[in-house]
């Protein structure tokens, strides 16, 4: 069952990323991505990280991608942009993809055998994560507040309409 779920999700996920690459409409791209991220949430759930799985779906699929879709609708381009048409670029991209993939697999191959998949149950519950966030990870947590201020200020400065304009 788990295997089946994994392969199903994996196929959907990869397919939707491929869809994003092939499709020329940005709105579709964004929707493909929502799908891919939702699958990602499924993987997280499979990996005993239910809280992160939910976060993934709520924040990524729910918030970030909605932001994308908003912007896409604001821009509202009439004609879509297909991916690169030039032959050599595509072959090149394919080549790069294969090489990079082989490299990463070779890198991680050593880890395959030593990965222990028998994790403890109940791991990654909201309580555990919350407790860690406010103890061991308090500092990073505080930093994210600065990060969000920076993003907020930056985004507003860049796009707000001035009185004069």
């Amino acid at each position, binding site marked *: 069952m788990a295997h089946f779920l994994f392969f199903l999700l994996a196929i959907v996920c990869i397919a939707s990323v491929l869809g994003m690459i092939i499709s020329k409409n940005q709105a579709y791209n964004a929707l493909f991505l929502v799908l891919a991220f939702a699958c990602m949430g499924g993987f997280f759930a499979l990996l005993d990280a239910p809280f992160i799985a939910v976060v993934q779906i709520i924040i990524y699929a729910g918030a970030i991608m909605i932001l994308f879709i908003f912007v896409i609708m604001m821009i509202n381009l009439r004609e879509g942009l297909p991916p690169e048409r030039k032959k050599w670029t595509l072959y090149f991209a394919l080549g790069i993809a294969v090489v990079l993939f082989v490299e990463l697999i070779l*890198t991680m191959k*050593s880890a395959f055998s030593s990965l222990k998949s028998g994790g403890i149950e109940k791991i990654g519950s909201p309580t555990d994560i919350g407790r860690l966030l406010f103890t061991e990870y308090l*500092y*990073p947590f505080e*930093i994210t507040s*600065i*990060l969000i*201020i920076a993003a907020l*200020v*930056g985004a507003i400065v860049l796009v707000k309409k001035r009185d004069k304009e």
Partner: protein
Amino acid sequence: MNSFSALIPLLIIVFASLCIMILEAFLKKENKDYLAYISIIFLVVCGFFLVRAWNKDFSYFNGNLFLDNLSLFFSFIFLITTFLVILISMKYISLQGVNCGEYYSLLLLALSGMLIMVSSGDLLVIFLGLEVLSISSYSLAGLRRKDEKSSEAAIKYFLLGCFASAFLVYGIALLYGATYSTDIASIINHFQSGESLGLMALIGLGMFVIGFGFKIAVVPFHMWTPDVYEGAPTPITAFFSVGPKAVGFAVLLRVLYPYLKNVQDSSKAIFLLLCIISVLTMVVGNLIALRQTNLKRILAYSSIAHAGYLLIAILAQDNASLVFYLTVYIFMNIGAFAAVIALGKKDKEYLELEDYAGIGFKYPWIGATFSVFLLSLAGFPPTGGFLAKFYVFSAAVRQDLVPLVIIGVLASLISVFYYLRIIVYMYMKEPSYEVDINIDNPGLFLVLFLCLYGVLQLGIFPGNVLILIKQAVTALL
């Protein structure tokens, strides 16, 4: 010592940034200069706390945040950087129509990102600090909203920066996978113990270096640099050319120094790669700079080349020389950009080489100080630039990196051509048209003199600073 004091400098800076944002809403347009003054006051207060913390080794958050002498020293030079950048910005933002309080606010947020990065030994914290710095930087690059070049710089910086960040994160993930930790010290321990998964850890470290290679702009991860530097508002370019670069080196120092020192066999590969990158960076940066006619682009390529020299210092494992070089570099580079900014008036910047014809006589102070900064960048005695290069190269020679040093010396020989070209234009070319600039810019002239003082002080009487630096780098031992 576990103490809340460790957090104070960061809090001050973030608080300052928030204050400025609030005040911005209440200040009238003509009073916006006060925002700069307020930021400077906060910087001074923060500097005061940093000085007080010297030798105290404060830490907080279970050691996630610590203020050892090295972080204090770096934090302090970042404060100086920001201080100088604020001074050169004051006139610029009103002349070039970027007049907004968020400018200072973002600058201070970027500073806080840098403070976070240098005062932690945890890769996650470093990454978050880097993102604070980067996200502020992306917006800063695009602040000249009417200028298409500025937004182009922002988008290039943003997209490529995120791309590089993804590599960085993946690198951290691999390191985590191999060592189950994000703490630098335990990662190094893992490397040292030579446990299994060495390869994954090695590649993780490699991808981490790639991500930071982007920040410090080394070849081949440098491609964004000239375009972003050209398009960003000039004071921000000055900031980019020193701030992110210095902080990138500070982090690399913390990671690579113990790695190269303690991990004998597997570090060979990274060592050789860094040698290659260093050579490429010096050669490519200096060669392309020869062809440029835009001052900002020349300085951009020059800053790429300097990253190459700085990498030599990392390879020579001589921390004092790296820190000293960075300190000098801040003064000479900001000084050079200040001189470039000086040549501007309302809605007009003079950035082409042609514009500099005869400037040396028309504006003797600008010409003279600019020449000193350029000579310092070229490594001429008795400026700080000479001494910095001298330290780095002699440290490298001690480590038997002679070929690297020879290439470095030759590369800096090439660099003389383009630095000299600017001086030749300033003093030996007749201007073919009138360049008229806004001379009423006290902050900028203050920066010119401070940088001049810094460059000469560090070149002639470096003693005290060196003692401080020596104390600072003992934190790494």
